[in-house]
């Protein structure tokens, strides 16, 4: 199998993992879609005592997870979520994977079908640095968070925070909570307006329900 490389390396997203973990109620059933090497599942099992499962597209990631004792299957978020029954999980998490899916809308809809709640984190393409790179260099941005050139990136569906909020509207998902993290991993004040989030949030984490 030729799995594409995993979406952004996990170590740049430690802060968003911690933000996600805070949103997960202890002792719940959790599915991590695109679980990579299992960092988030391990964190959730250790700190929240969840019954965790994962799906990961890369064979290497899956093998690492299973060897660590995690319940993970090799699969594709775009095609394999349909196999799960309704309400199979309390939380379905998509961490740093939305932008690598072929059908983000379908994936979010499936997440809210098989889970009571969904948590989605993604890099915000509306961040001022990215806007700046495009504006001033006239080229697709490549930096530490977005390390791939446009022709080899697995990230085919970048969006901004405002784009994602609009998608939630379209699929009738209710945003229970939103968190934006700035470039230093610090949270942006809850009272800040959307345009501010969209400009200064480098990572976004959303808790959704139906």
């Amino acid at each position: 199998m030729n799995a594409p490389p995993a979406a952004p390396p996990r170590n740049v997203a430690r802060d968003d993992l911690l933000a996600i973990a805070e949103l997960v109620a202890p002792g719940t059933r959790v599915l991590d879609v695109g679980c990579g090497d299992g960092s988030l599942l391990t964190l959730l099992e250790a700190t929240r005592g969840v019954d965790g499962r994962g799906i990961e597209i890369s064979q290497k990631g899956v093998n690492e997870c299973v060897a660590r004792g995690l319940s993970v299957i090799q699969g594709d978020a775009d095609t394999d979520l349909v196999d799960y029954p309704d309400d199979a999980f309390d939380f379905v998490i998509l961490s740093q994977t939305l932008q690598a899916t072929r059908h983000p809308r379908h994936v979010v809809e499936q997440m809210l079908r098989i889970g009571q709640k969904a948590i989605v984190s993604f890099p915000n393409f509306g961040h001022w640095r990215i806007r700046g790179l495009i504006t001033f260099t006239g080229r697709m941005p490549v930096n530490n968070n977005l390390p791939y050139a446009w022709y080899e990136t697995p990230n085919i569906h970048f969006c901004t925070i405002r784009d994602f909020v609009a998608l939630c509207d379209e699929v009738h998902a209710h945003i229970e909570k939103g968190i934006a993290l700035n470039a230093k991993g610090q949270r942006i004040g809850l009272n800040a307006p959307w345009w501010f989030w969209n400009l200064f949030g480098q990572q976004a984490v959303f808790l959704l329900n139906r």
Partner: protein
Amino acid sequence: MATTSDTASAAPPPALRSNDALNQADHPASLVACFGPDEPLLLDSGHRLDHLQIAYQTYGTLNAERSNAILVCHALTGDQHVANTHPVTGKPGWWTDMVGSGKPIDTDRYFVICANVLGGCMGTTGPASTNPATGEAYAVDLPVITVRDMVRSQAKLLDRLGIETLFSVAGGSMGGMQVLQWASTYPDRVFSALPIAAAARHSSQNIAFHEVGRQAVMADPEWRLGRYLREGASPRKGLAVARMAAHITYLSDDALHRKFGRNLQDRDKPTFGFDADFQIESYLRHQGRTFVDRFDANSYLYLTRAMDYFDLAADYDGRLANAFKGTRTRFCVVSFTSDWLFPTVENKAVVRALNAAAASVSFVEIETDRGHDAFLLDEPELYATIRGFLSSAAHARGIGTKP
């Protein structure tokens, strides 16, 4: 520890299986459990076996809670000699790298049981066993058996051993079929399940290959309508051809090419005859020859038939997920990229059904060019997977590192 015998096989008589192999059917170099007419085995065919013998090996120690037992299910031509010297061939057991002290299936921690399957020829009742009613081998009078019959017979053995719940059931190929059958027939007795390179049903192509093998056996005049043991004959040629054809399906095109290519066997140029010019021919002939020394031809017919009949979903209105409805067993499904006999897609169908049943399931596809037989070979990723899966399950089950 298991009783083991280190008897190496004597050179087989030209027309027969070795006496060592023949004797194993009734007097195996293994532990034995016998069941009489007071506890008959009811078969899927509607028949019943009033006399059942099960030959088995054990490794490690059962803990005080009787919670650390792992049942290993062997494949079509395997047997109960998982991790000891084989009493007929004198070779190491078939899963020596997997099962043992400090191995992924760690006998310092777990109590491992492997029984020869029903229909086999290494001491569990099969066509080469003596029928107590006639004093002669059952031969083709043995009722046709199924994978579920095998599993039912293993459950009787566990009852006898006083083991209510298995910590795990593990096996590859036909062994994996038994694992799936165990998990669906006795969900409360299986804490974790490891079906490797298996499928929930035998495909049309696989039935076709088996039919070729059976026809090769039955076309051999020495098969004598199945009564060869009584008549002092043996369909060696037919069984060898069956094994040769089957062996190709256990490997991959890439692996064969890497190993043999078009290399010639002990010669510089083709002989323009039908001798084994190519190394691959010589290799297959050797595989066929050694196989018939240790395996009963009728057993081969019965066991291939059992695999052909295997279709787990058929017992549940065609919906495989129903076979695992409400299951609390933890599953780890493993497939190999170059396995075209039990390909990844068949293993994934099992995973999909388990997901639909909201079961706890892991699935690993291991990259290898060694084909179906990879489950028997040195595959570090397979070892790491099984070690990790079992350790985490043992933690959940409260099994310590020592019994």
